[in-house]
């Protein structure tokens, strides 16, 4: 290959790149689709709001199974992190191509370089913004939602065109070697891949060093990196005793043993909600058409109470399952004369912020376990968890489960 650099690793070659590529070919679509599903799950609250044609077909986000968003978003964040070693190894395996001179010998190659910039730039941009977001480091200054959403589309375009171009090469290269054979080959017996005389840009080095690692050693290294990442992140989604394994993530920290000691995504302090506005003067306003009913907390507690064990799952990938008790949303709709509500608009006492209100779809209002929760794990909600009352609906993205509810306007005939 025409390159000013001498590439030394005897492991590089189309077969190795194709093995790493095939792992990403299978797993990346899961990260992409779960990410786009998250946009659908946010419904009316999806950000950025107007994305033209750049979204999946929209549908009412379901309420069954209750762990649906926990699964999709846990996969999106978790798999995204776990794949980082594979991505880095894949980039390492093809990096000689970056330094080829001249950079392009034809118009076709120049255009292909541009699409590779979409692919690699999009991927790295998504990793960087995602990693910073789940740890609340907003050093980038711009809107995370806008950046991560549109960055994803640039990546998707680069990914699809790269797969369309390289799939035949990948299949051919995979056939040129045997994974089973390679997994039996020790370092001392590891040889470079055969050089294809037809391919002037072959990844196989012309003058390699002796191997310091076998290919199975490299696979073990990459797989081990992914396994380590899994061990250090999965706990924030799976919860229970595994949570403390998420040693280096905020949601792996010990919140305590009390009934209200589980993670929040926003404190009352941050929402500027205080004890005065949530004290005895607090009233819940229920509305439908021209009807308005106002209830205080005692009156809510006198209504039929229902208990449900439901997860609350954050877009950041973490989740926590708790036992919630409160009034069914459809019972509240009945208070204002609506037997069959088709939706609801919930507003919080919180005055500022993107998620101070939320639109609920028909399923989210009428589900048996869709609650205005007053208690959690048998005690009153703490102020940080939304006292005096909060929404909890199965499978709804965490942040849409409005805390410190001030009013609910039901829709329907």
């Amino acid at each position, binding site marked *: 290959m025409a390159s000013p650099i001498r590439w030394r690793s005897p492991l590089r070659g189309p077969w190795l790149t194709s093995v790493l590529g095939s792992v990403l070919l299978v797993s990346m679509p899961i990260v992409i689709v779960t990410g786009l599903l998250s946009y659908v799950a946010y419904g009316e609250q999806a950000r950025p709001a107007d994305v033209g044609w750049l979204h999946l077909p929209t549908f009412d986000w379901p309420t069954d199974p209750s762990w649906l968003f926990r699964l999709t978003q846990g996969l999106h964040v978790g798999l995204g992190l776990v794949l980082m070693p594979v991505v880095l190894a894949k980039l390492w395996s093809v990096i000689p191509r970056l330094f080829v001179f001249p950079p392009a010998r034809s*118009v076709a190659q120049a255009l292909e370089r541009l699409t590779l910039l979409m692919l690699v730039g999009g991927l790295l941009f998504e990793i960087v913004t995602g990693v910073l977001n789940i740890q609340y480091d907003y050093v980038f*200054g711009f809107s995370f939602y806008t950046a991560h959403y549109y960055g994803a589309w*640039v990546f998707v375009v680069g990914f699809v065109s790269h797969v369309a171009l390289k799939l035949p090469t990948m299949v051919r290269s995979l056939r040129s070697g045997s994974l089973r054979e390679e997994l039996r080959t020790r370092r001392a017996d590891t040889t470079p891949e055969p050089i294809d005389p037809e391919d002037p840009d072959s990844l196989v080095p012309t003058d390699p060093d002796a191997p*310091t690692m076998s290919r199975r050693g490299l696979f073990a*290294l990459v797989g081990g990196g992914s396994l380590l990442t899994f061990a250090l992140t999965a706990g924030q989604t799976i919860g229970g005793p595994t949570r403390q394994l998420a040693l280096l993530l905020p949601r792996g920290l010990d919140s305590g043993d009390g009934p209200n000691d589980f993670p929040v995504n*926003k404190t009352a302090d941050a929402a500027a909600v205080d004890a005065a506005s949530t004290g005895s003067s607090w009233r819940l306003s229920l509305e439908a058409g021209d009807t308005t009913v106002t209830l205080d907390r005692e009156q809510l507690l006198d209504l039929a109470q229902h208990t449900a064990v439901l997860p609350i799952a954050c877009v950041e990938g973490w989740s926590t399952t708790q036992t919630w008790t409160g009034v069914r949303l459809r019972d509240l709709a009945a208070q204002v004369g609506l037997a069959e509500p088709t939706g609801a608009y919930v507003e919080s006492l919180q005055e500022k912020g993107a998620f101070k209100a939320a639109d609920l779809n028909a399923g989210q209002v009428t589900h048996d376990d869709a609650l205005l929760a007053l208690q959690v794990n048998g005690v009153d909600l703490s102020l940080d968890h939304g006292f005096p009352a909060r929404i909890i609906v199965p499978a709804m993205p965490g942040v849409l489960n409005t805390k410190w509810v001030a009013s609910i306007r039901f829709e329907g005939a």
Partner: protein
Amino acid sequence: MASTTGTRWSRAYGASGWHLVLMLASLALVGYVVATVGLDALWDPDVWWQSMAVWFVGAVVLHDLVLFPVYALADRLLARRRAGSTARVPLVNHVRVPTLAAALTFLLFFPGILRRGGDTYANATGLDQDQDPFLVRWLLLVLAAYLLSATLYAVRSVRARRRPRAATDLPGSP
């Protein structure tokens, strides 16, 4: 006739016609994405380095022209040491593996380790603890990785010394 046209075309362009269609379709789609985001959102004239466009290109530059050269050079220095060594068990991977584990965990979790986030972190989590535990935990994790690797190296070295020299895995053997 058709094949002559095809050959002439591919010589001029460098690939088949459908390659060009795919490239143009990709560029058109990304053009649509850029138009939908709006140039205002991509570029912040007040703080240039907080622009999406800068971060997009910056991510590539940081990986390709900083991260890769740094780790390649570090590995080169490590591998060169090995060339003069006569040890029966090569040390190189016993340094590589824990170093990579340290680098990977730092890349993934540096905001917590370096106590970044500040108010945003406190507002979001409301945890009594701040980010203090992360640095110590990470250092312990890295220490454990190096210790484990060193222990394995010691065990392998002892076992190799007990075996006759010919049976060991010498570099350069066929």
